């Protein structure tokens, strides 16, 4: 496992028990992120991108179960490490999170300051390695004054960096007094404060208007590039992926289909699904092409490549066994028996 990789998900499978049966939501997904790299995880709803993000964060919704695979973080498999250690050392420190819905991600009953400082109390970069010897139960453990003052300064700096007006006063206000755009800036600030190596952003701009989205995308890109933080960014909006990412991975019905540097992904898509996806984007007045058929149910999904029922190039192989990874060019990889290689 080359050390150049920060996060390496290998052969990850996740299932969900529902009242209609067991849904195979992720099918042996492999994904790697290098330090400082912004990777876009793109796909339509139900493709598993949010499940993958939440599995790495370790917050699978009820009914979700990991069936196999590993998530290596700097060489150590998070799935086999001591849960308390992952929760104390990795979650919220090495890996932080930006949620999709700015409106519900802060408790309405506590001021913004209380919630940020609570985060700092446990996740501040100035807090030494805690280990598991916490003798005092978390609830009553103190917050050393010196560190609190230093953390508060850091909070004010980052709030200015994300262009929150009057940071001092903002800390004393309640979340409902901020607009959607400002709240998302708060979320970005909270994601940056612990000086993470990786930020997982799950559709961070989906709930925002286009002009606010543009501001947030620009802010996020500038800050992560400035601080060399890598990002796993999930979205169903191909435009935002184009704007923000260095590399894009497209998923369909729980399988990864293609992964390529952004320009190669959009100019020379090799996988039939990626091509159909880009074709169905609305263009000025032209003919609108959609993808015939429906996304398959993940309870008893189609064997082999799960796109084969809707694919023009599908052959017996595609229906029998999932295609292996085929290297197109450099970092451009596709999982397809009949990739469309541009001349």
């Amino acid at each position, binding site marked *: 496992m080359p050390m150049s990789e920060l996060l390496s998900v290998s052969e990850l499978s996740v299932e969900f028990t529902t009242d209609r049966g067991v849904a195979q939501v992720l099918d042996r997904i492999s994904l790697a992120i290098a330090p400082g790299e912004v990777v876009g995880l793109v796909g339509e709803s139900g493709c598993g991108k949010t499940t993958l993000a939440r599995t790495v964060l370790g917050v699978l919704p009820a009914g979700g179960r990991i069936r196999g695979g590993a998530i290596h973080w700097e060489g150590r498999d998070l799935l086999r490490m001591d849960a308390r250690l992952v929760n104390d050392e990795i979650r919220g420190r090495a890996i932080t999170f930006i*949620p999709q819905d700015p409106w519900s991600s802060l408790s309405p009953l506590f001021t913004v300051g209380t919630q940020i400082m609570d985060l700092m109390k446990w*996740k501040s970069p100035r807090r030494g390695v805690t280990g598991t010897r916490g003798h005092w139960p978390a609830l009553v453990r103190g917050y050393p004054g010196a560190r609190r003052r230093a953390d508060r300064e850091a909070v004010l700096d980052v709030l200015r960096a994300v262009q929150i007006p009057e940071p001092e006063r903002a800390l004393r206000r309640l979340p409902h*007094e901020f607009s959607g755009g400002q709240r998302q800036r708060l979320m970005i600030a909270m994601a940056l404060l612990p000086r993470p190596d990786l930020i997982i952003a799950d559709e961070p701009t989906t709930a925002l208007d286009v002009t606010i989205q543009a501001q947030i995308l620009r802010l996020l890109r500038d800050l992560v590039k400035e601080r060399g933080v890598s990002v796993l960014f999930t979205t169903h909006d191909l435009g935002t992926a184009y704007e923000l990412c260095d590399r894009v991975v497209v998923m369909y019905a729980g399988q990864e289909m293609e992964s390529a540097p952004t320009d190669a992904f959009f100019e020379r898509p090799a996988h039939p699904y990626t091509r159909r996806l880009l074709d169905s984007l609305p263009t000025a007045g032209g003919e609108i092409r959609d993808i015939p058929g429906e996304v398959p149910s993940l309870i008893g999904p189609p064997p082999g490549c799960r796109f084969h029922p809707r694919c023009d190039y599908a052959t017996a192989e595609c229906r029998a066994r999932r295609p292996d990874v085929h290297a197109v060019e450099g970092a451009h990889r596709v999982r397809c028996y009949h990739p469309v290689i541009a001349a």
Partner: protein
Amino acid sequence: MRALALVLRRLVWFPPTLLGLLAVTFVISRVIPADPVALVAGETATPAQVAALRSQLGFDRPLPVQFVDYVGRLARGDLGTSLYTTRPIADDLASRLAATIELTLVAMALSVLVGIPLGVVSALWRNSVLDHALRVITVSGLAIASFWLGIMLQLLFAMRLGWTPLNGRLAGFPPRGVTGLYLVDAVLAGDWAAFTAALGHIALPAATLAFPALATLVRFTRAGVLEVMQSGFVLYERAMGLPPSVIVWKYILRSALTSTVTQIGLLFGILLAGAVVTETVFDWPGIGTYAVNSIIRSDYNVVMGFTVWAGTIFLAVNLLVDIAHTVVDPRERMS
């Protein structure tokens, strides 16, 4: 601002609702019964005595005039005199109010201190053995007739095991004190013997009264916590690795509490209603026993006086609930 408005609106509606209550009690006492005077005079009175009483009480005047007079006297705190104790009803009620308040407060404390943690725990360990057991207890808690529960507790603890006195509020003399709440006065006076005696007496009635309220609170808190656990900020805090105990006991409980506060307010009303029956079972010298005993002796005006008092206390409690709700929910205060 909004908090003020809420309270003001409640205050604005207080008099008309109370007046409506007075109208209802007036109708019950003067209009429904065939001959209200006969009822007041009692079975033994001769027709002549009844006729004399009718003019003396002014029952021969037109109803609206009687109503105005009725409300006028109530306004002056004159609930009429009790046929049985021959003392003004207002004084009887006042002297017994402290007993009812003490019983209700202890029952309230019991249901809150036991109910809320149980509700949180049963939500956190959902569908565990504990959760199922608690669900059976809470469903049965809402199904048990409180007077029967009281009798059964008496049967077991007082008669069979002898751990507690059978009934009554205190064997000896009440501890000196200003509040009229024996437990509080005993503590203030440092009179531990009286305190333990009073505690022994209040144990069973408070438990009887508290059980249905406890059941409601567990169910309500459990539902509240379950709902909060689905919210976005809990997901965010879990994803950011905050210690689980901080998430549960600070953020989840705090959110679940805002709705529980209104529920606690409602509980006070339920406890007041329960007190009427529970006091009778345990001969607890509160306004409930006083009202029920007056029923048996058809000491008529008492029932009316009691209804008015209960209504007023109830409306006041609703007012307190609104205020408490705004105190607990900062958004109310800020907007």
